[in-house]
């Protein structure tokens, strides 16, 4: 019996990876990362930052122009399953036939492919439409079919390109279950997403991509800690207090423990080191200054803030992805 590979063994290893499109657009440069068995790795990055390209290179669906990719745990193409962000199926075949065909192409026997396809379509809640042509599927159904095929492939490495993009809450939950199961079986999963909350809770490690470079890669907790760990306090004010916003900002700027204050919507946002010690004196100053507070909300630093802080990404038009 073949010994089961241990979690933590390297599956995919990229070094100095670079890729440019035929028109010369550089999609990736000098990317280094390692994917191990039994972990889920998330990739966060703006549109065009190189997430899809990196996943394709890792999957072996394209050739890197620079650097190298070692695949110690997934040497054959069939060892890597990629669910793209725009899944393509034979629209005149049923979902079950498409899944069966793609599993048969991976070397399954006809009977086994059909049985496994049926199981995974059921797991992604596609059983009721398994007999329908995929040309009639919604975008979310196509995504679920692509995920079903990717997980059914039972490849050591599973690469998912923006799997959440069209999934409803039920689909997310099914994906979460499948991810946990695949991780438990020792598979390595890489997924790209625009949802920091999902990445923070479902991924063991997260990488931030910006303009084709992997600018940070670590556990969500470490990434959040790297930005200083400041908590934000959002104070919503009654309408009448808006006119005096400038005075309130000045009053709070010197409050103990407050590291920064700025106007935000119909209120103020404070950055503090520790909310427990900074909040009482800050509120006292607000009340003394005549502010009418509607609500106070604590927001500990999250992965989204870490992403913006560590990538330097801006929301202005024309900023690099």
């Amino acid at each position: 019996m073949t010994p089961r590979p241990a979690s933590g063994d390297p599956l995919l290893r990229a070094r100095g990876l670079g890729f440019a499109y035929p028109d010369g657009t550089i999609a990736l440069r000098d990317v280094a990362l390692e994917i191990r068995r039994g972990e889920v790795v998330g990739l966060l990055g703006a549109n065009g930052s190189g997430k899809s390209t990196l996943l394709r290179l890792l999957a072996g669906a394209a050739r890197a122009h620079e650097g190298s990719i070692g695949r110690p745990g997934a040497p054959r193409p069939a060892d890597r399953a990629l669910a793209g962000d725009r899944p393509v199926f034979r629209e005149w075949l049923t979902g079950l036939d498409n899944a069966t065909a793609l599993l048969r192409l991976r070397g399954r026997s006809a009977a086994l492919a059909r049985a496994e396809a049926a199981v995974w379509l059921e797991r992604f809640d596609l059983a009721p439409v398994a007999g329908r042509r995929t040309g009639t599927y919604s975008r979310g159904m196509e995504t679920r079919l692509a995920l079903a095929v990717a997980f059914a492939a039972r490849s050591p490495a599973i690469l998912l390109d923006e799997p959440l993009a069209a999934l409803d809450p039920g689909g997310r939950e099914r994906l979460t279950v499948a991810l946990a199961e695949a991780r438990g079986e020792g598979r390595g999963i890489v997924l790209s997403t625009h949802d920091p909350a999902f990445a923070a809770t479902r991924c063991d490690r997260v990488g931030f991509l910006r303009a084709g470079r992997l600018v940070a890669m670590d556990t969500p907790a470490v990434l959040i800690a790297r930005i200083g760990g400041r908590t934000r306090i959002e104070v919503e004010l009654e309408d009448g207090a808006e006119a005096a916003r400038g005075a309130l900002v000045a009053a709070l700027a010197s409050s103990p423990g407050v590291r920064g204050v700025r106007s935000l919507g119909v209120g103020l946002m404070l950055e503090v080191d520790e909310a427990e010690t900074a909040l009482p004196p800050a509120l006292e100053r607000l009340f003394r200054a005549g502010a009418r507070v509607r609500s106070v909300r604590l927001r500990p630093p999250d992965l989204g803030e870490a992403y913006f802080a560590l990538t330097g990404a801006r929301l202005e038009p024309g900023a690099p992805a």
Partner: protein
Amino acid sequence: MTVWWLAWRSALARRRLFVWNVAVPALLLTPVASSDAAAPHRVAVFGVFIVFFATFGAALPAVRDAREGWLDTVFRTGVRRPAWLVQTTLAEAAIDLVQLAPVTAVLALLADGASPASVPILIAALAVTLLFANVLGVVLAATVRSLAEAALASAAVSLLLLHFAGFFRPPVSGWTRALAALDPYSPLRVALARLEGLPGGGGLPPWAVVAALGLGGLAALTAGRWTRRFEWPATR
């Protein structure tokens, strides 16, 4: 054999298209076969239609599948491109043969010089033609950038090969005869001419058949390399 299975499954799943592919050849060629047109003209029309049918039928879907990403999806499963090419062309040629079977029967029934011996030769020549035309279609699809270019290239190259095969003008001089002997569509011309009782239907020298098959094999091998161009991102 999964690619083969998938091609047949797809063909049969699109029943309406399948029926059209049977009906259109019959509707177009039956009037020609039953007309008073000169036999060489009928042979030319049959040849052009059969070659276009297979070449366009291979090139246009290949361009579409490459652009939509289906070929990328297939190759990512680990299927080797040469294996995909061989299975696809074999399957599509077989499907073409089935779809052309009714009209082939009509041609055989209505032909002036049809004899029992000429029908198996026609079927064999048809099979070789469809196989080569399907390979050619995929190769052309790999070299162009759009459906329109694929259609133009298919028409131009097919007509050139049909011309060299002698469909439009019998090869008379030494070099045109040599070209015709090497042309993969010559067996079809000879078979159709024989069916129509034309003098040019005497046959090809045995070496010519071997050469045509060799060229077809070479084209298939070359096509395996061309299909790298179907990979992502498009490098065309």
